[in-house]
C-alpha cells in the first residue's frame, strides 16, 4: 500500500484556509506545468468561509479506470492512479462522470482527461507533492502515518461508503476519532443553508 518510503497523503479539511497555494503550486509541477489538477471548493461563501481541497484520492480499485473504454488510466505499483495516457484517451468523459470525488476533468483544448497523479514525477524520486509541500495550513500533508498519529488529534481513515458501494483510497482524510468510515449520503449534497457561522446570531449571545 505504501510507496515512497512509507510516506502517505493526508487531508485535514478542518485546517483549510482557502488560500489556493495548492492550486497555484500544482500548476508549477513539471509534468503538467500551466495546468492545475487540484480543485479547491468554496463550500457556501455566503454562509461561511469554509473551503475544501480535492486531490485525486487514488482508489484501490479506481472506478475511473474501470469505466475507461480505452484503458487509458493506469495504476502504478505504488498505487498511484495516473492521469490518462495521451495516445489512448479518447476524451469520452466516462471517468469524469464516474468518479465519486469529482476529480478527473476533460480538457477540450487537448481532447484529453487530466487529473492529479500525486505528483508522480516528484513522489517517485522521493520528493513530496507540490500541493502538500507548500500548503501553509497543513490541510494537505505528505508524511508518514506514524508522524500523523504522533502530531494530530484526528484519525486518518481511507474508507468511504457511497450508498451501497465501499471505496478504499490511498489518500487519507483526518476525521474525529469516533469516525471509522465516511458515509456520503446523497441528501447532504444538495444546497443547504446554515446559520452556524452567522455573525449576527453570535452577537445575540445566549
Amino acid at each position, binding site marked *: 500500500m505504501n510507496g515512497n518510503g512509507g510516506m502517505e497523503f493526508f487531508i485535514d479539511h478542518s485546517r483549510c484556509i482557502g488560500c489556493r497555494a495548492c492550486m497555484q503550486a500544482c500548476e508549477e509541477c513539471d509534468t503538467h506545468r500551466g495546468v492545475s489538477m487540484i480543485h479547491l471548493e468554496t463550500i457556501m461563501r455566503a454562509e461561511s468561509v469554509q473551503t475544501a481541497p480535492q486531490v485525486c484520492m487514488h482508489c484501490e480499485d479506481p472506478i475511473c479506470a474501470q469505466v475507461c473504454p480505452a484503458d487509458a488510466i493506469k495504476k502504478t505499483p505504488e498505487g498511484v492512479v495516473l492521469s490518462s495516457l495521451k495516445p489512448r484517451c479518447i476524451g469520452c468523459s466516462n471517468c469524469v462522470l464516474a468518479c465519486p470525488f469529482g476529480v478527473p476533468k476533460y480538457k477540450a483544448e487537448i481532447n484529453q482527461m487530466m487529473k492529479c497523479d500525486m505528483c508522480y514525477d516528484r513522489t517517485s524520486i522521493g520528493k513530496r507533492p507540490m500541493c502538500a509541500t507548500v500548503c501553509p495550513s497543513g490541510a494537505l500533508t505528505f508524511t508518514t502515518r506514524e508522524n500523523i498519529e504522533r502530531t494530530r488529534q484526528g484519525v486518518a481513515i481511507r474508507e468511504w461508503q457511497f450508498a451501497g458501494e465501499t471505496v478504499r483510497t490511498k489518500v487519507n482524510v483526518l476525521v474525529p476519532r469516533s469516525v471509522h468510515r465516511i458515509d456520503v449520503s446523497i441528501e447532504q449534497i444538495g444546497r443547504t443553508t446554515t446559520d452556524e*457561522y452567522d*455573525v449576527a446570531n453570535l452577537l445575540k449571545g445566549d
Partner: protein
Amino acid sequence: MAKPPVSIPELVAQFGPSLNRIPATGWNAEVEPDRIVQTHCCFCGQQCGIQLKVKDNRVIGFEPWEDFPFNEGRLCPKGVKRYMQDEHPDRLKAPMVRKDGTGFVPVSWNEALEKVASEIRRIQQAYGNDAFALLGGASLTNEKAYLMGKFARVAVKTANIDYNGRLCMVSAGAASKKIFGIDRSANPWSDIPLSQAILVAGANVAECAPITTHYLWQARENGAKLIVMDPRMTPIARNADLYIPVRSGGDIGVFNGMLHIMIQRGWIDREFIAQHTTGWEQVEETVRKYTPEYAARIAGVPASMIVKAAEIWGPASTSFLLHARGIEHHSKGVLNCMAAINLVVATGRIGREGCGYAMITGQGNGQGGREQGQKCDQLPGGRDIENPEHRKYIASVWGVPEESIPHKGLSMVPIFEAIHAGKIKGLLAISCNPMVSLPNNSFIREACEKLEFFAQVDFFLSETARYADVVLAGSLMEEDEGTTTNVEGRVIHHKKAVNPPGDARADWKIICEIAGRLGYAEKFKYESPKEIFDELRVASKGGVSDYYGITWERIDREKGVFWPCPSPEHPGTPRLYEGNKFNHPDGKAHFQAVEWKPAAEETDSEYPIILTTGRVVSHYLSGTQTRRIGALVDQYPQPVCEIHPLLAGKLGISEGDFVKVESRRGGVTVRANVVKTIRPDTVFVPYHWPLDRAANNMTVRAIDPISNIPEYKICAVRVSKVPAPHDAIAELEMQAGGVR
C-alpha cells in the same frame, strides 16, 4: 510640477499594471535551470525560505525550500507566484523624466541623477534643508533602510525622513517598547505550538500571514484553546474555540474585561507582578469598572464571550498572544496593544517556553526596516535621535559632527500634511506607494500635486511614481543582495538571483550616487551591500537591536540569527526576557493602564456604517507587484464590499450589485459580496487597489498620537446601490483600478 504628464489611461497603456501569466521560458518543463538560489520571499514579514530557479540571468520558476526552519517549504500563493514579477513587460529598465503632454521619456543616468541632486540643492537653498523630505519603506533590506537613514542625515541633511512601516507596525512597536523596552516579538514562532491558550487579536492570519496558520493548528493539536478577535469571521476564526466578533475599535473592552475577571477569580501572578513589574496598581484600578457588562458594551459583543475568553486565558499554564493591524491601525493603536500585552504581563507568562507574545509584522522587512534609522525619530540600532549619547555614537560611526545630525522630523502622514501646507517642497521616495496606501487619498493626491519636485525610485511605475518628475529604475529583491529581519527577529539573507534588467540599477547604488552628487561621495563609498551591512553592525553595536555579532556567513550557516547578538560568539536571542529580565533600566516590565476611548470618526445618522479595511491572501500592500501577476489577480481580481445580509437587505442590496461606499472624504464603487461572516454594522473593503477602487479614498486622516499610525480600521460610511459605472477609470483593466 508633480502631476501625471498624460492621462491615467495613457500611462496605464504604457506602463501597466499589465498581467504576466507565463514563466520566462514558457510553461515548458524541459528547461533545466542553471542555478537554484536559496533565498526568501520578497513579500510579507514571514519571509519564507524559497528556492528560485535561474537560467540565463532570468528567474524561471521556484522550488520549495524544505530545509529552511521557519516555513519548511510552506508558501502562500504570493510566494508561489512571486517569480512572475521577473521578466515582466512593465518592468522599468531605464531612468525617465516627466515631459508634460508626452509622458515619461528615458534619459541617461547622468541626466536623471544630476536633475535629482540639483533639485535637492535648489529647494534646500530656497526653503531650508527640511523642505526636502525622504520616504523609505519596510520592503527595503536592512542595508538599504540603514542607507536611507544615513543618506537623510549625512547627505541631504533633512530631518524629514520617514517610511511606510509607519502605516503598519509602529503601534505594536511603541506598545512593546513602553512595556518591555524592546520593539520586537518576544518569542520565536516555535513557541506557539507549545502554548495552551492562544489569543489572536486583530490578525487575519490565514490571509495576511498564512504560514502562521500551521503553527496555530499545531498548537490546537497539542490541546491549546484558540481565541480569535475580529469583526469578520476569517478562515482561522471558523475553527477557533472561541470567536469574538468584536466591533472595530472595541478591543480594549475585551482586554480590560478579561483582566477584570482574571483579577476577580485569582488568575493573575501576584508574585511575578510584585517582583518584576511596575504600574500594576493603576491597571487594577483602571479595569475595576470593566465588568463583563461594561466591557461588552465597548466591545459590541455578548458579555459571556468576554467571560469565556478570561476562562480560557486566565488559568492556562502557558499562553501566547498574537496581534496585528486589526488592533494596531487605530488612533488608539498603542493603547489597544498595551491593553493586550497587559494580559501577558499580569499572568507572568513570558520569557519561557510556550509563553509570550508576538506582533505579526506585516511587511517584508517590517522588523528590520524599523531598526536601522529610516524613521523620523530614530538612529541605527533602534537608537533615539534626541538622545545625546546616541547621537554622539552614531556621529562617530559616520565621521560627522554630532550637531550636523538633524533632530526629530515629521512622520509619514504629517509629511504629506506639510507638503499640502506648502512647507515641504521636494520629495524623494523609494519602496512606498502613498497614492494607494495612505488614508484620505484625495488629500494625498492634492499634496502630491503641490510638490515642486518629486523623484521616485521604483521597479514598476507605481500609482505614486506617475506623479514624479524623475523616475529612477531600481531593483527587485532578487536583483540585489542583503538581509531582512523576519517576524520573529531572525535576521536572514536574501541572495541575488539575477542582475537588474536593461539600464536599471541596484537601489543602494542609486542612493550612493545621489549622495556623491550632493558632495558626500566619501561617506557613501561602498563596493557592495555587504560593506553596508558591516557598517550597520558597528552602528547597531550597543543599541537595543544589536546586530554586531551577526555576519552574512553566520546567517547562511545557521539559517538565520536572532538579534540581539552583541558579539560573534553570541548565539543570538530567539526568546527575549528569559529569567524575567526586561529592558528598562530598572529591569522590570512596566504595566500601562489603558482606558478605552472612541475612534476619531464614529458612525452617525448620515454615515451609519463602520468601514474596516485590510488585505486579501493573493495581494500584497499597495499591489504594485501582485497586481501585475496574472495568477494572483485571477484569484482576487477587484475589491468587493463584504456586507452582512441583514444590512444588505435593509439597503436593498443583493449579491453582486454595484454599490457606492462613501465617507465624508470620498468613495469607491465596487460589487457587493453578501456574506454572513461579518458584523451587520460593519462593511469591509480590501485596500490593494488604486483610483476609484481605493479603499483609502474613504479612510480617515487621523493618527495615533504616540505611534502616528493612521486609523485604517474604522471610519464612518454609507452604502447605496448604484448602476454599473462606465467612466474611463472604470473601463480600465481591474488590476489598474477598473471594475467589472
